[in-house]
């Protein structure tokens, strides 16, 4: 067994040395930007978003995020499919302590509000649809921890998930219909809303719209995953 560990360390050191020698030629702090420089110069004009990252995430490389959303959707359906049992119920015995239950009831609303804030202001402040959705999911997780009998409403969560996903693609298709390019930012480019108030809430074309959709979708999906993992499956 020791021989195996020594061998593993030796191989990993060689691989590490190899990667290090490759990375040495990619100097750490140097400005290697090419396409990125173009983004930085044109993000305000072409997308109206202050936060360049969200502009890149939603507008310039919108396709990636579409793929991204699908990955998460696959994860949640996969988990639901694999843990699906005929009869499933929660087997947590102990109710959360008094502090936890009351705290949960109180804090639930604020956490959800905070999550919503994150994904609505995605184009301005750091963070976007995904972190916002995740915070919402933590709110539901807290409820699961607190109450032994609490269950999220499956059917409605799955339907919202579906609707949110369809919404995202619909936005893209409208872009295709109007601007003849899939995922074309028809709010910013064609209708030209919010050109005036860059940096404020109602700006940056369809980024906030998409981020809200993503926020809701991620929130429902992650809580769905939590729900199917928590339950014990009977046969």
């Amino acid at each position, binding site marked *: 067994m020791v021989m195996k560990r020594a061998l*593993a360390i030796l*191989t*990993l050191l*060689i*691989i590490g*040395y*190899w990667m290090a*020698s*490759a990375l040495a030629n990619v100097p750490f702090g140097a400005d290697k930007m090419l396409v990125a420089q173009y983004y930085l110069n044109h993000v305000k004009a072409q997308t109206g978003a202050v936060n360049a990252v969200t502009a890149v995430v939603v507008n310039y490389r919108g396709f990636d995020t579409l793929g991204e959303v699908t990955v998460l959707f696959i994860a949640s359906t996969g988990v639901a499919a694999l843990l699906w049992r005929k009869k499933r119920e929660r087997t947590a015995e102990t109710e959360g302590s008094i502090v936890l239950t009351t705290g949960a009831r109180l804090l639930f609303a604020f956490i959800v509000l905070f999550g919503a804030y994150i994904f609505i202001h995605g184009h301005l402040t750091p963070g976007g649809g995904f972190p916002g959705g995740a915070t919402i999911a933590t709110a539901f997780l807290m409820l699961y921890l607190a109450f032994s009998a609490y269950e999220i409403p499956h059917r409605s969560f799955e339907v919202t998930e579906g609707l949110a996903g369809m919404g995202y693609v619909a936005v893209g298709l409208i872009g295709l219909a109007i601007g003849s390019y899939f995922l074309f930012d028809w709010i910013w480019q064609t209708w030209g809303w919010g050109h005036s108030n860059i940096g404020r809430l109602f700006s940056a074309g369809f980024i906030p719209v998409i981020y809200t959709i993503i926020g809701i979708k991620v929130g429902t999906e992650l809580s769905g995953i939590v729900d199917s993992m928590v339950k014990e499956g009977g046969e």
Partner: protein
Amino acid sequence: MINELMIIIFTPLITGVIAWLLDIKGLREGISILGAAVPLAYLIQAHQTLTSQPSIQYSIVISGFKFEFLLYHLSWIFAMIAGVVGFAAVLGMASTTKDSYEWLFALMSLTGVYGIFLADDLISFFIFWEIMTFGSFMMVLKYNRKASLKYFLLSVLGAYSMLLAIGILYAKVGALDFTTIQQTLYQDAMRGVLGTNTLLSRNDMLLIFGLFLIAFGVKAGMFPLHVWAPDAYSETNQSYTAMFSGVLSKAGVYGMLVIYILLGTRLMYQFGRIGAAPKFGYVIAFLGGITIIVGGLLAALQEDIRKLFAYSSISQVGYILVGIGVGSALSIEAAIYHAISHALFKGLFFLIVATIVLRTGKTEFKDMGGLAEKMPITFAMTFVAILSLAGIPPLVGFASKWLLFEAVIHENMPILGGMIFFGSAIGFVYLIRFTYAVWFGQRPTDLDDTKDTPIPLAIAMGILALLNVVFGIAPGLVATELNKIFGKEIIKGTIWELNIGFGRYNGLLITIWLVTGIVIAGIIYFLGAKVRRVPVTDTYQGGNPVTMEYNLTIRRNFFLPLKETLAFWLRISFDRLYQDIGRWVEDLAETLRNYIYNGNVQAYAWYLAIILLILALWGV
């Protein structure tokens, strides 16, 4: 319009498919016989055109390859062999096949053979080679898996070695059709002679020749690679074996000729000559010689009628290989002549075997006997076939064997000469073993009601027997065709006579004098007193009465003394060698798989790490 070459090649396959689809008892036999007859008719008709123009040409482009087909004298002769014996075999099959599966694959192998003889470029040659192998393999698969697997593996090994050789040629010469390859290799030889370095190096030529030798050796049943033939020939519908051994082994022989056509001069330049024969030819000849002896001796020791003829077919092909190996124009013509005669009498023999197996249902010698009275027509055909195979003067067997002996010995090759002589005697030996065990002696009671041959088989046998006799008495017919291959008059002499300078053979004269001899003997015979017919059991037994139950015969183990004398040699068997290799490969595969895919995800992760390590070490 569809070129006639295409019709010749593809009619059997198309009719085979139709017959397979229709699967109506009477109709499919008709269609298949038509399928075999049409190419034969076209070939005969092509004979006239060949007198006017040197060859019939046709080419077509499929998936990036330019396929060319050429019918000239040499391929016409081989195609005629395929046509005639094929037609006879198909006629024979009309009475021995039970379901349409066999029609499809028999005719597919016939298409394969036609394709091979008419192909003029390596790729179509290889494709039809594969079609032929596959068709004949499926015929054997139906009856016995082990035999068919052994056959398929060896012939696919041959096919793939041919493919490798084609690949090397394609890589070096860049073209695939025969004419360009022939020219480039010819110039290459000339370049070599002038001293400049050649396109193909010495071990390239060695590799190509070795690979082609294996490929064609397998199909022709040359000595070390003959192992599949006895099982494959015996484990299938016997009238198909007439085509299988009569025609398909000729594909291997034609392949050897292709080696001569394509690589002849180049190999001659590269490896030089021993005495008169080219060195590479001598290898073929020597292996052919050993095949004759091994095939013959093993044939004499067989207990199964089909196996006996399978080994005899191998040994006869050995003759042809010796002829080709010696390499002189006369010996190649003799080899092709023997190919024709072998196709004829071997086809006839297997049809006879088909009738016997069809009528008696038995294949072992010990169960048969005394069929001469019960099946007179078949026995007459057997008598003709025996005289022809054993090489008795008036029939075609002798003509081709005589030509072969003269050609080989004239090239003063003592060892080969000795081998051939020994081969001809073995011919006698296993034939008489066959005749004694099947036709003469006491007849077991259950064979009393055996009927004679069905009509289609009888016709088929009739055709082949007639050809045996005709070509025997008038060898000139075949000689004129053979001379057309080389253009010049190698075998002189009239239609009845073969005259090759240092030896003359006149078919007609011998027949006349043999008849007069027999007439004289007949006169003496009839001068004597009247003869009383006596049943078979009334024989001089030194006192003890011969009854049907107490059936004294030595059908089993007829050549026990021969087996004892050869005991030492019989222990070496290539068959067991190949089986051991097969088993060893499978065990290796088993351990390899269990060791590599051992199911442990960590081991798999280790494989990934090792690959990363290799990439790392390579890079740094």
